[in-house]
């Protein structure tokens, strides 16, 4: 049976089937949630914590979801906001500037066991990591998730034009990084 968003929302609205609905939601979205977070924060342990926070927030607030956008868009918005908030907190906690944070992450990423050993892929991830985090979010949503600009606009509360420009500059930076290394 296909798990539709309508079915999840209908079951979630009833007290006796709320947990069942949430299980279906996790079955359908947990990997998308995890990987969309992981692409922004990079490290598994960080992505795991944020994924748990996102799922707890979905549990708490899904009954307030009004259906103004699709459920996927709503979830993506929570993932991006939580990831960016997490990075800000981490920078403050470690007392790191933007460039120090990138250097710190590049070193940490090299030691992460849960990354592909492919050298070209490693280089691509380093290039993505060197982007400012908001631009990184734009780049990963478009590049990996192939999210339409209109949907990205709802997720990031930014105009379509600004997002197109941001993605264009991000892609250029990544290509420049790859050609230099």
């Amino acid at each position, binding site marked *: 049976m296909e798990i539709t968003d309508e079915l999840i929302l209908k079951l979630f609205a009833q007290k006796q089937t709320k947990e069942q609905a949430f299980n279906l939601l996790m079955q359908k979205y947990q990997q998308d949630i995890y*990987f969309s977070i*992981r692409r922004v924060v990079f490290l598994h342990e960080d992505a795991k914590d944020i994924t748990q926070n996102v799922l707890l927030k979905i549990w708490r607030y899904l009954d307030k979801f009004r259906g103004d956008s699709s459920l996927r868009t709503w979830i993506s918005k929570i993932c991006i906001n939580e990831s960016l908030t997490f990075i800000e907190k981490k920078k403050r906690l470690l007392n790191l500037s933007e460039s120090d944070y990138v250097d710190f992450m590049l070193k940490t990423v090299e030691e992460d066991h849960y990354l*592909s050993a492919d050298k070209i892929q490693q280089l*691509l991830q380093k290039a993505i990591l060197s982007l400012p985090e908001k631009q990184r979010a734009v780049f990963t949503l478009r*590049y990996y998730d192939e999210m339409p600009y209109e949907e990205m606009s709802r997720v990031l509360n930014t105009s379509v034009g600004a997002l197109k420009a941001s993605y264009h500059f991000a892609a250029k930076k*990544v290509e420049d990084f790859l050609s230099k290394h």
Partner: protein
Amino acid sequence: MKNLEELKEKNYFHVPEGFFEQLPNDILNTIKKEEKKNRLYRKAIVAAAIAAIVVIGSVTILFFPTPETAVSVAISNSPKIESFVENPPPTNTPQVYEEELDNIDYQIMEYYNEEVLNSDYLY
């Protein structure tokens, strides 16, 4: 250099084995723990509210008493007043004894007795 599109590999990030199988259970356990904690928290708030009402009520009665309770509290708090209420001192009204009355007094009393007894006001 390869084109960006050619490098698009979705499984660059690896996860520990069984991570996605375990994640729903972990989340549901956390939710259950959180809800239990919330229930206890709500009960604690109700208990604290009741305790606060009792304390405020007691303080109000003690420090802002009604006039009746103020008198009784004042009496009970002061042994002097209590003994005064229980054993009032003799009044200063002079006591008149029969031996001090003379003849004229008896005449006056008799006169008034008759006046009063004959008075229509009594009937």
